[in-house]
């Protein structure tokens, strides 16, 4: 059916999964307040949070099955939204599972972790749906505020406090840019609705109007901060290092995916006619991010910082897909997002396990000879590293993600050949640190007196098994996912029609 978003009941129907999640989160919050603090309560709330997330996922799948459509309005009902939602929900389920065991290990009995993860996910789902800059702003804030708190939850750690404060201040700073950009865009076009903005730009020939150009530039800076693209990446390593590792996994995977998803939607739905204005900045942003990120990552000894730079680098790769500005580009983008989210999440899950209480054992030397003591962990980490690197076969889905990305970049009407060359070259540099981790784990002997690795909880084991299975499984059968993402692009309806006739 086609939803008419001006009728409140149909608006609600179009938001069913989001409402389930928000209602569940609110109920759990009340429950958390009523129960005494402690490990049992934390686990109980965690289980209920999983139930809420699974219910939300079921609702999302039901919405996909129903094949609903939507008229013009503040939110989108398309497969891009649902696919992004499933990525967020998957990452949230993993985060809750990891947090349940991490909370016991680190003696952080706050059950609110799970509630905040649910709220952050609700913010992300709002972002994936948003077709109005006002909703975009609210979604970003709901997500960010929940994650700021998650980052600072461990109050015994000075590093966590520093990271959380930095994240908060720079996040607020970025929000300022975003809001300024939104205000100028509204001033220039008279609307916050993405499709209306796109239409006004065409109707009034605003492509080179200064207010709109500055607005778009400020939006780009704001999103640059949110997705940690160089030169707006300074906060990422400190924040990723300081935050509790399950939260870092959540930030590096779902939070980044959400920011990118809405970024792509805004660019493709509101500003497709302004590509001459934004392609060049996005081009440079992508190029610098790939180069700087990879080179700095080579020097990292701390595994969390290394993964933080790795996530910066992947922002660069994803920006290439944004710069492509085509349907193929956004399909490759979504495919990459799935692969990146799974692999990053798996890597951080291993880091959670290796780090004993107090977040120690994060140095690369703590991974030496991991193969001889914990072969399972070493294999899981190895697969995630190879997937992030885009290694053929063993890297599973990671290889195809890079492959489709290159294909999209080369097939773009804009000249992205130099960018593709940079992408390939920097992927070779990336081998320097990803393969180094693999080498250290498999080829070095376990040093004398290396820290004991505690038992791996069943939940963490489950998360790791599922991640590795997904990486390998999707790597063996990538075409289903590729077909799926090709049918899930966020273009405005009029454009989709235009493209269909062009075929």
């Amino acid at each position, binding site marked *: 059916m086609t939803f008419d978003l001006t009728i409140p009941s149909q608006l609600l129907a179009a938001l069913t999964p989001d409402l389930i999640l928000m209602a569940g989160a609110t109920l759990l919050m009340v429950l958390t307040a009523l129960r005494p603090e402690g490990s049992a309560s934390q686990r109980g709330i965690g289980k209920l949070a999983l139930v809420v997330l699974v219910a939300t996922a079921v609702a999302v799948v039901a919405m996909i099955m129903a094949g609903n459509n939507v008229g013009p309005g503040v939110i989108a009902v398309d497969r891009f939204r649902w696919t992004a939602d499933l990525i967020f929900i998957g990452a949230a389920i993993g985060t809750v599972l990891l947090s349940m065991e991490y909370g016991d290990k680190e003696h952080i009995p706050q059950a609110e972790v799970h509630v905040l993860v649910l709220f952050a996910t609700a913010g992300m789902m709002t972002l994936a749906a948003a077709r109005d800059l006002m909703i975009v702003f609210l979604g970003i804030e709901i997500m960010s505020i929940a994650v700021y708190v998650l980052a600072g939850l461990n109050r015994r750690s000075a590093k966590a406090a520093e990271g959380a404060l930095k994240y908060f201040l720079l996040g607020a700073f970025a929000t300022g840019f975003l809001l300024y950009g939104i205000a100028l865009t509204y*001033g*220039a076009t008279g609307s916050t609705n993405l499709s209306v903005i796109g239409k006004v730009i065409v109707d009034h020939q605003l492509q080179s109007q200064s207010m709109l150009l500055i607005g778009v530039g400020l939006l780009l800076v704001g999103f640059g901060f949110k997705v940690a693209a160089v030169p707006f990446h300074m906060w990422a390593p400190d924040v990723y290092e300081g935050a509790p590792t399950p939260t870092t996994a959540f930030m590096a995977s779902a939070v980044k995916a959400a920011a990118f998803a809405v970024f792509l939607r805004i660019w493709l739905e509101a500003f497709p006619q302004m590509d001459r204005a934004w392609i060049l900045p996005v081009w440079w942003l992508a190029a610098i991010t790939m180069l700087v990120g990879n080179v700095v990552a080579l020097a990292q000894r701390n595994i969390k910082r290394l993964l933080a730079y790795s996530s910066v680098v992947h922002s660069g790769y994803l920006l290439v897909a944004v710069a492509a500005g085509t349907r193929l580009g956004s399909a490759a983008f979504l495919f990459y997002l799935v692969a990146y989210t799974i692999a990053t999440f798996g890597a951080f899950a291993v880091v959670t396990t290796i780090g004993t209480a107090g977040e120690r054992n994060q140095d690369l030397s703590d991974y030496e000879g991991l193969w001889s003591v914990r072969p399972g962990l070493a294999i899981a980490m190895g697969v995630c590293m190879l997937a992030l690197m885009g290694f053929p076969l063993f890297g599973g889905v990671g290889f195809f993600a890079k492959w489709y990305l290159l294909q999209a970049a080369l097939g773009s009407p804009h000249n992205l050949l130099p960018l593709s060359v940079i992408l390939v070259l920097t992927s070779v540099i990336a081998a320097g640190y990803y393969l180094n981790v693999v080498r250290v784990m498999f080829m070095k002997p376990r040093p004398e007196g290396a820290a004991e690795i505690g038992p791996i909880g069943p939940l963490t084991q489950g998360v790791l098994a599922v991640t590795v299975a997904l990486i390998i499984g999707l790597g063996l059968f990538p075409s289903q996912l590729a077909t799926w993402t090709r049918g899930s692009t966020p273009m405005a309806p009029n454009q989709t029609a235009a493209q269909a006739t062009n075929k």
Partner: protein
Amino acid sequence: MQNEFVPLFYGFHFYLFGLIALASALMFVTRKSPVAAALWLVQTMFALAALYVMMDAQFVGVMQILVYAGAIMVVFLFVIMLLNLGHPSEISDIRGKWGRVIAGLFGIALLAEIGAASRNALVPALQLPQAPTDGAINGTAGVIGPIAGPMFKEYLLAFELTSVLLLVAVIGAVVLGKKSSNAR
């Protein structure tokens, strides 16, 4: 405007309150003592409220005073007093001279952007949400109807999401602020 004195009268007050708002805002960001800064902010809010009233948005003007100048600023002042930041002379500024120079340049750049943005900025036909055509509501401009209509119709989702946002912020503040048994 049949009365020829009205534009002059209107203009005078527009510039008066505009200047007060700008000057207070400048004082607000340059004061070292947090209490003084907060009080200047209250003054800015009052001047803005006057501007709202001049735009026939009486309800927004009153809300500005009640909510911002009244409630929020009082909470601000409470927080400042609870934090007990000490005497203004003891508060160090951000990283000395260079920090200020860079921040200043940054501010000037942003100001210049406004200038550049408003140059040749011909706003196309605004696609604002249709004002209710109901004569009864139109006749009472500045009263609650024209605000309530869009808020619960066109902007319903944004309005509800704002409440979720505030809820998350409150939860976050409580979680970070509460005395926890594990905070040794």
